[in-house]
């Protein structure tokens, strides 16, 4: 069984590869490459998988999940300029793909329990674009050693 908690945060970012020209970056990222940045209302869905505890009837206490999301994600990213204030985005392009991977990386150590494991991070950059990062991506990234 899976449970999902949704939170939202607002942040600014820009997407550009430092070695490329502004024109080349705009070709890849469109308006996202504006040098002064721009912002989104990100919506984050965090899904845990497990079996309900026979006594509590819960997979995981959603109050505790809320507290973890606040400390690991919202306190770090909400109302921040990701490129300037939130490592590793000083040197990793904060695309939705990379932000979802970073959120997984932050949450996984806290949500890797015997009875409840992090199963999926879904990050909406806008209502028209979202990325899913799941356990198999974590395995694949581990095998390639990549935080890229």
């Amino acid at each position, binding site marked *: 069984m899976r449970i999902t908690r949704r939170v939202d945060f607002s942040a600014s970012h820009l997407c550009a590869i430092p070695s490329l020209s502004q024109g080349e970056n705009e070709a890849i990222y469109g308006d996202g490459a504006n040098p002064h940045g721009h912002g989104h209302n990100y919506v984050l869905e965090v899904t845990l998988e497990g079996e309900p505890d026979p006594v509590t009837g819960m997979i995981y206490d959603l109050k505790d999940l809320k507290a973890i999301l606040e400390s690991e994600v919202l306190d770090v990213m909400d109302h921040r300029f990701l490129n300037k204030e939130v490592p590793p985005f000083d040197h990793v392009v*904060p695309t*939705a*793909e990379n932000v979802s991977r970073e959120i997984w990386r932050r949450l996984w150590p806290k949500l890797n329990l015997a009875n409840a494991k992090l199963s999926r991070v879904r990050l909406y950059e806008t209502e028209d*674009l979202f990325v899913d990062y799941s356990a198999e991506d974590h395995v694949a990234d581990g095998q390639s050693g990549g935080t890229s």
Partner: protein
Amino acid sequence: MTLTRRYRFSASHRLYNPALSELENREIYGRCSNPFGHGHNYILEIGVEGRPDAVSGRMIASADLDSLVGEEVLRIYNGKNMNLDIDTFLGGRVPTTENVAKDIRERLERRWPAPGSPFGHTARMPSLSGVRLFETAKNIFDI
């Protein structure tokens, strides 16, 4: 990792199978068989699967996906009467949303660059992982 992008188009259709009688069509499709047709604001979600490029951090340049879906789907469907304007349905195939979703997937697969190959500003083309079509907010079709 999957990335999903959402698009919109508006189109009309009539659910009517010419091999059946008027009465049978009315019994099967109800008011969706109204002779003059009716329309929807469709929402289309296209999912791609792959790994983000190590340099750009993207699985696909949005502009590349937008141009592919725009050319192969939105240009064909938006503002059209499916029964009269879209070749797939001219021969009597009924434009149920099941059939529309299947047609959209087939159109994209026919023109989808080989996964792993460069395409436009995308270093390695991801694979097409899913098509989800909302006929209305309450009727949703996945293929």
